[in-house]
């Protein structure tokens, strides 16, 4: 069996000394009613790097992701214990400004959820709430976001049409564009590529790679090769516990825990 404290790479420890951490999770427990969904998670997220969360369905990846911008607050009978510091601020402090937090920590959901509005308005939505811009400035942001999400060429001639008419792969890129438009510092991506064809998927990975020069990204993916390709650090979670976290290269070439090995090589547990 596995020890209580999962291993973290020395690289991460060095990083924490260097204080370039975007988020620090310590002793996090999450309950849905009486049921424990996350069990004592502690991990560091390095700024301007990509951290991947992998693990079997139902292990708690989305639950963990939602903790980073307190989206679990919206779920009845979901209780969070422990601490998450983002840019050295305890986001579960009672005085935390949640609106500001969610602007700083953007989220792309597992199931694309476009608003029943035009393509343009979907992307402009958050920006409008946040600041007063000229229509030219707003158009520029929408164009930049759609381009960054590799959707621009497909929709540039029909920005006024309903977003609900887009294919699911297009909707997925649309919600990524929407998240990018408000320029968050941390971007949470929950299975962003699950509806994408291989080329769009590679474009998205390329985008993630570009974005990490300015943003911190936490990505949940079931695609192990994708985690191996895009992330700098990988955390393996199983049944609500952090089994192992390491730099992605070591985790995929010689994981320290048997459970990790079994999972990434497709063996029975």
């Amino acid at each position, binding site marked *: 069996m596995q020890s209580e404290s999962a291993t973290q790479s020395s690289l991460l420890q060095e990083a924490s000394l260097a204080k370039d951490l975007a988020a620090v999770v310590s002793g996090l427990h999450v309950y849905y009613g009486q049921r424990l969904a996350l069990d004592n998670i502690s991990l560091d997220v390095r700024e301007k790097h990509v951290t991947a969360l992998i693990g079997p369905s139902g292990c708690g990846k989305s639950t963990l992701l939602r903790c980073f911008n307190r989206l679990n607050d919206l779920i009845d009978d979901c209780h969070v214990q422990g601490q998450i510091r983002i840019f050295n601020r305890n986001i579960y402090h009672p005085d935390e400004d949640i609106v500001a937090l969610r602007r700083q920590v953007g989220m792309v959901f597992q199931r694309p959820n476009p608003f029943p509005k035009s393509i343009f308005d979907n992307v402009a939505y958050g920006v409008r709430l946040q600041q007063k811009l000229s229509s030219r400035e707003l158009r520029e942001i929408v164009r930049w976001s759609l381009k960054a999400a590799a959707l621009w060429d497909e929709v540039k001639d029909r920005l006024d049409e309903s977003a609900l008419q887009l294919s699911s792969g297009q909707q997925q890129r649309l919600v990524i564009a929407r998240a990018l438009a408000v320029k968050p510092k941390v971007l949470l991506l929950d299975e962003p590529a699950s509806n994408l064809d291989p080329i769009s998927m590679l474009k998205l990975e390329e985008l993630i790679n570009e974005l990490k020069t300015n943003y911190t990204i936490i990505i949940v993916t079931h695609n*192990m*090769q994708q985690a*191996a390709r895009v992330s700098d650090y990988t955390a393996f979670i199983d049944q609500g516990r952090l089994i192992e976290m390491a730099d992605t290269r070591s985790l*995929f*070439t*010689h*994981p320290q825990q*048997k459970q*990790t*090995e*079994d999972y*990434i*090589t*497709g*063996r*029975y547990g």
Partner: protein
Amino acid sequence: MSLKLNQHISREYNAELERIRSQVLRMGGLVESQLTQSVRALRKADTSLAVEVQNADGRINQLEVEIDAECTEIVARRQPAASDLRLIMGVSKIISDLERIGDEAKRIAKMTNTDLAGHLPEHMNMEIGYMADLARTMLHDVLDAFARLDADDALEIAQRDRQIDLKYESITRQLITYMVQDVKTIPTALAVMWAVRSLERIGDRAQNIAEHLIYLVRGEDVRHVPLDDLLQ
């Protein structure tokens, strides 16, 4: 962490990895027998056996190509990770060392010459036999360790190369003495020199295989690390 090939959810994948392993063992068995036969041919000046050895080398090369193609296919279709990835990478290095050992055996066979028979002093003949035994046992044992994916054994085997090197030095010294004492021995001594040089290289290759095996089982690259450090 012990390495098990047969616990994938995909049974077809288990079978593919198992097949690669048994192919490597088959290739290894062939190489081992080539080595045995080439040394026998040399010591007994059996030229027809020597020709047989030279002709059989093609089969080893062919196996290397086949196994290599299977490794490439697994990489393309399965995207192996962790121990599976190390197995595939390790196997593709191991078979290249095996193929080179096959080449050295062929070289030893080529040195076989009827003239050798009369000219080789009996105790030199025994020395060569002893050195060949060291090399052959080392190869045999490393293949056996591979069959069991046993890194501890591989570490012990890797160190035996030193004994072969020492034997190589002592035999070459003696050969030089013969040549100095009697110029008529020069052609024979040179042929033997080439053959023991090949045996010495086989020891190096067997050590490489042991190191690849340690890497594929444990995930540590032990090449260029002094063996004494590893044993501590």
